[in-house]
């Protein structure tokens, strides 16, 4: 099986963006998909008091975060009582090791996976592959992306960057299906290929949408049934989740589910809402004998320390911010080079990888505000983008920054220019003389001002300074 590649270099955002913008196929595939999703989302909320529902969603998430350590302990206790084994991982590597150890203890050689973004984050498939355990994605989109040796380009629709023709060719080449543009035929072929795998897999690995502390319940949202297969057919099920996905009460999942599916794909609800509270009981005839939950931190407890950045942990992973982002729609998900692309990726990833690597992410935005307007849990994404932009050029000792790698975008020349600027502005005589000299020498002003003039005309200095003109007027 094709292995999932390591993520591409995040720092190469600009060359990739230029290439994507120049590729009409990429632009067409994304444009078509995102336009449709925007309309579907709007229709799905018709008749709802959307603002009140968003407030409720945001408050449920904030309340859960306020109680996070207690809820995690309660979740662990409840799940343990239900017979689920709970593991904690400080980072992706530790989470990978925990999963491998469970596989080794069961002598497992094959893993079937349901969709899970946190396992993309920790590059689990790659890790298992390196340790002679085959990991196969079973969500159709993820399966296609894995066949292509790529990473998902959208968190809800992983293969959205490909059109039917490309997928047909890929499946033909990798699995021997006929070349056909009949989506039903391609889907049926994948069903056939994956059914064998479900039956024979030793372990099933899934993500988690919501983990309920009150009852010890893991909730999974999906349409295909692959999530149910993954968590039911193999004898061992390992669920993996970020520590922020916990909610306090069972009733909390009702409004969050309503927001999630409508925001993501414009569905009232997905085909399956799967709630798992334990392994099979002795009298039950199917379901896994063993259920594990791996709680992954991987930078989340650092984000948790900052009052403002903490808001990113509210995210319920619906992808609506991507669907509505003019930048994402034009460049596509792979351009970002990060596990989570689009607006949420731009505020989440700088924490996980540091601003030195992720320095371009907060600037890949027009700050139009669409992402903040559609976010079902009201994450102030534009405000956070501004905050991170500030941090990326931070050199201010009065307002020390918090994100790892802050100041990565601060250049020596730029820093000197601003230092000179503030020196001059604090001295009225120097300021008046300086602006007067500059206006007299305006013909010498260079036409090329770096990044500014790449897409704009350079501003021209006036013939006389404002001070001079005001003086004339008062005479």
């Amino acid at each position, binding site marked *: 099986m094709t292995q999932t590649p390591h993520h591409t270099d995040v720092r190469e955002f600009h060359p990739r963006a230029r290439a994507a913008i120049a590729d009409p196929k990429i632009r067409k595939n994304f444009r078509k998909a995102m336009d449709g999703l925007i309309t579907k989302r709007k229709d799905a909320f018709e008749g709802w008091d959307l603002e009140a529902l968003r407030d409720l969603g945001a408050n449920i998430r904030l309340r859960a975060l306020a109680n996070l350590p207690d809820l*995690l302990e309660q979740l662990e206790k409840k799940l343990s009582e239900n017979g689920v084994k709970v593991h904690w991982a400080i980072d992706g590597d530790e989470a990978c090791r925990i999963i491998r150890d469970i596989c080794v203890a069961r002598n497992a050689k094959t893993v079937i996976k349901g969709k899970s973004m946190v396992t993309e984050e920790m590059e689990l498939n790659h890790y298992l592959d390196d340790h002679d355990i085959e990991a196969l994605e079973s969500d*159709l989109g993820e399966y296609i992306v894995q066949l292509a040796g790529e990473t998902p380009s959208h968190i809800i629709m992983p293969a959205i960057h490909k059109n039917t023709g490309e997928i047909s060719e890929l499946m033909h080449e990798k699995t021997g299906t006929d070349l056909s543009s009949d989506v039903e035929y391609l889907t049926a072929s994948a069903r056939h290929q994956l059914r064998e795998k479900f039956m024979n897999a030793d372990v099933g690995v899934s993500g988690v949408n919501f983990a309920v502390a*009150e009852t010890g319940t893991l909730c999974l949202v999906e349409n295909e049934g692959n999530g149910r297969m993954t968590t*039911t057919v193999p004898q061992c099920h390992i669920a993996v989740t970020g520590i922020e996905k916990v909610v306090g*009460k069972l009733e909390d999942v*009702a409004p969050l589910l309503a927001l999630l599916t409508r925001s993501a794909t414009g569905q009232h609800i997905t085909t*399956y809402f799967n709630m*798992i509270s334990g392994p099979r009981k002795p009298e039950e*005839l*199917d379901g896994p004998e063993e259920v594990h939950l791996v709680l992954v931190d991987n930078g989340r407890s650092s984000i948790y320390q900052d009052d403002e950045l903490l808001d990113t942990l509210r995210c319920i992973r619906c992808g609506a911010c991507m669907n509505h982002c003019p930048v994402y729609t034009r460049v596509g998900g792979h351009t970002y080079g990060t596990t989570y692309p689009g607006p949420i990726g731009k505020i989440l990833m700088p924490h996980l990888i540091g601003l030195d690597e992720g320095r371009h992410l907060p600037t890949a935005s027009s700050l139009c505000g669409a992402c903040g307007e559609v976010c079902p849990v009201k994450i102030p994404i534009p405000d956070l983008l501004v905050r991170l932009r500030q941090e990326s050029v931070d050199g201010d000792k009065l307002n020390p920054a918090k994100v790892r790698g802050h100041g990565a975008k601060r250049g020596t020349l730029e820093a000197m220019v601003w230092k000179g600027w503030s020196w001059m502005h604090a001295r009225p005589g120097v300021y008046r003389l300086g602006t007067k000299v500059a206006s007299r020498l305006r013909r010498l002003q260079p036409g090329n001002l770096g990044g500014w003039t790449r897409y704009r005309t350079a501003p021209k200095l006036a013939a006389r300074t404002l001070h001079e003109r005001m003086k004339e007027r008062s005479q």
Partner: protein
Amino acid sequence: MNSRDIILQRLSERSGGKLHQPECDFSVLERPSSSVTERVEQFQKIIESVHGEVHRCTPESWIPQLSGILSSRGARNLLIPAAHQIGRALRDSGRDDLPELLIYDEPVTSWQAHLFNEVDASITSTRGGIAETGSLILWPTPDEPRLMSLVPPIHIAVLEASGLYTTFHEAMRVQNWKSGMPTNALLISGPSKTADIEQTLAYGVHGPKELIVLVIE
């Protein structure tokens, strides 16, 4: 310190201090009261919009209707619950126009290949439904195991009209789910589907291709 303690300590000793806990107002989920007929109509409309099929039946008519549905699809067999009244009624009906009736009475490992490859249809009960989203509530049991509603290409669910709630929130509150959850609880809202290939809808990708609901009024 192990990872668990490190994580919990970092969260408990947050440098920003204690966080504010906002009030959560669930009233946005409340709906005006409606009659059973209105709920059935809403349920039918929504589930049909996602390719589900609804047949409105009476306690007397559902078996003949089921028989017609199965023969129109050429189903060779039907997986039924052994103990539930649905299964008993089918076995006791004495009809010769029903396909072969199968019972899921041993662990799946002993007959997995047969279940995956040879079973054409299954019928299960439900714990009610949700009108607003066109959803069925299933709590699999030893009598009706989890894979019954997932593996066969046709899943038929029996829903008592009186068991229809307006919202999910109402259903879990009235049935008091928080007092004890089963190992697996499900909402099923249509046949298995995907739009992963260029947003084109295709049904039956991993689970049933058809979801047929017999609403008993």
